[in-house]
Structures are given as structure tokens and as C-alpha cells.
């Protein structure tokens, strides 16, 4: 845990590198695929399969489903 030093304790990081914004965008895109994709991007049968596979989580997470 070399990064817990007096310097890092007094000068907090507030800069988010560009790659991290890209990573967050990819993460949100995967979130969309898991919870909302119903055929807008994938072919109808692939989307249906994904929908059925993540079905219980979609209901449980409260996103609009069916």
C-alpha cells in the first residue's frame, strides 16, 4: 500500500484520465446490453436469447421488461 503516503493524503486526486471516461462509457454500454437490449442492436433472436438469459435480473433490478 505504497500509495497511502502523507502526500496523497493532503493532495487528493480529482483528475479522471481520458481512458477512464472511455472505460465508464463501455461499462454503461454493457449495462445497457444486460438490462435493456431487446433488438435495437443485436439480431432479434440473439436479443431474445440475451433477454431471456438476463430475465430474472432485469425484473429484480426494476428496469422495464417485456
Amino acid at each position, binding site marked *: 500500500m505504497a500509495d497511502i503516503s502523507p502526500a496523497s*493524503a493532503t493532495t*487528493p486526486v480529482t483528475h*479522471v484520465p481520458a481512458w477512464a*471516461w472511455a*472505460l465508464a462509457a463501455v461499462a*454503461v454500454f454493457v449495462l445497457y446490453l444486460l438490462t435493456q437490449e431487446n433488438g435495437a442492436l443485436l439480431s432479434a433472436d440473439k436479443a431474445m436469447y440475451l433477454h431471456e438469459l438476463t430475465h430474472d435480473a432485469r425484473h429484480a*433490478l*426494476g*428496469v422495464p421488461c*417485456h
Partner: protein
Amino acid sequence: MTFPAFLRRGAAAGAAGGFSAALVEWLVVEPVIRRALLVEDARAARHHEHEVPLVTRTAQFGAGGVTAIVVGVIFGVVFTVVFVRLRDRIPGTTDLGRALVLAVTGFAVLTLLPALHIPANPPGVGDHETVNERTLIYVLTLLVGLLGVGAVSAVDRRLRRRATDPVRQALDIVVGVIWAGGALLLLPDSPDAVPADVPAGLLWDFRLASLAQLSMMWLVVGVVFGLLVDARTLRPQRVPQLTA
């Protein structure tokens, strides 16, 4: 602490939150889903329909929990980016405190507000024809909630020089409650009616179970992230102070 160090801790907190949420899903939500599927089966039997499932129930049970874990990691990553970016603006004197404020805010805006306005539904409720409209209302609810956070922090900044701390904080709460109440009143309602064969008790149990799962996710992500990034967790003698 460098950004990648934050991100590793955020992903770990997200995995912990996702796994806790998956446990709630498997233990609390799934029994209610089973009750709902019985209602659906009875409905299909009345209409003499027989649907061949694309994915078995066992696979849906397993994959549902795995989905919750992946969603937890995604939450952790996005949480980290927002936390680091807003670290000098989130109220709180320690990183644990700030992480908890961010988690409570995220819960209120991204979970509680949509749960009140366009609540979760068990299988057997939800019209195929209206899913796009309901998704639009859902996303709109999230956006209005996020704008509310912006409105409250704008009011807070304006009052910083003009009001004492207690007055400012009380007014922040008033603005937040009025914003949320206005959103609930003015946003369009779900176009769906709940079918008559779905018992009210089942609907209530499902919505409560769904809320429990999402609350567990935010709670664990906030607490674990806060503990992992707070310098005091390992070195109790050093209290980091932000230079505002």
C-alpha cells in the same frame, strides 16, 4: 493514491456489492418470481398456450445472479469515476463520508425515485407493446433525478455566503423534496394496468424484494469503497483534509 488505485478499489467494492445483491436476488427475489411464474402458467393454461422456453429456469436463476454481479462491477467503475471527479465537491470531511454521501445520493436518484414512479414488476405484469414507452419514462425519471442533484448543489452554492450552515442545509433538503415530489407528480405514468390475476400481495412483495436487492448493492458499494479508499482505514493517525 493514483486513479488506477481508486479504480481497483472501486471494482472490488462493485464486485462485493454485486455479489451481495446476487445473494438477495437468489434468496429473496427468486421465491417471489416463482410465485409470479405460477400466475403466468395458470394464465397460459387458461388460454391453452404452451411456450417452449428459450432458456431453462435453472439457467435463468443462475444467469440472473451473475448478471447482478456484473452490474455491481459496472456500478463500482462508474461510482469510482464520479467519486474521483467530484471528490472536492461531495460534502464530507473524509473519503468514507464522501463515499457514503455519493452512495446515498445514487440510491435516492437512480433507485428510489424510479422505484416510486415506475416501480419494478414481476413476470406476468408488463405489456410487450408498451416496453419502449415505459423505458422512455424510466430513463426520463433518472435524468430528472440527476438534474435535481444539480439543482440542489446549485442552490447550496448560492446559499454558502448568504445563509448559516443549518439554514442552508435545511433549504437544500426542501429543494430536493420539492424537486422529487414535482417529478413524481409531473412525469408521465406507466401506461400499463396490472392484470387482474396478479395478486396485490405478490406485486408488493416483488417491489419490496427488488428494492431490497438494489439497496443492498448501494449499501455495500458505498461502505466497501469508502473503507478501501479512506486513508484512515489502515493508518488511523492520519486524517486526510481537503484543501478547499
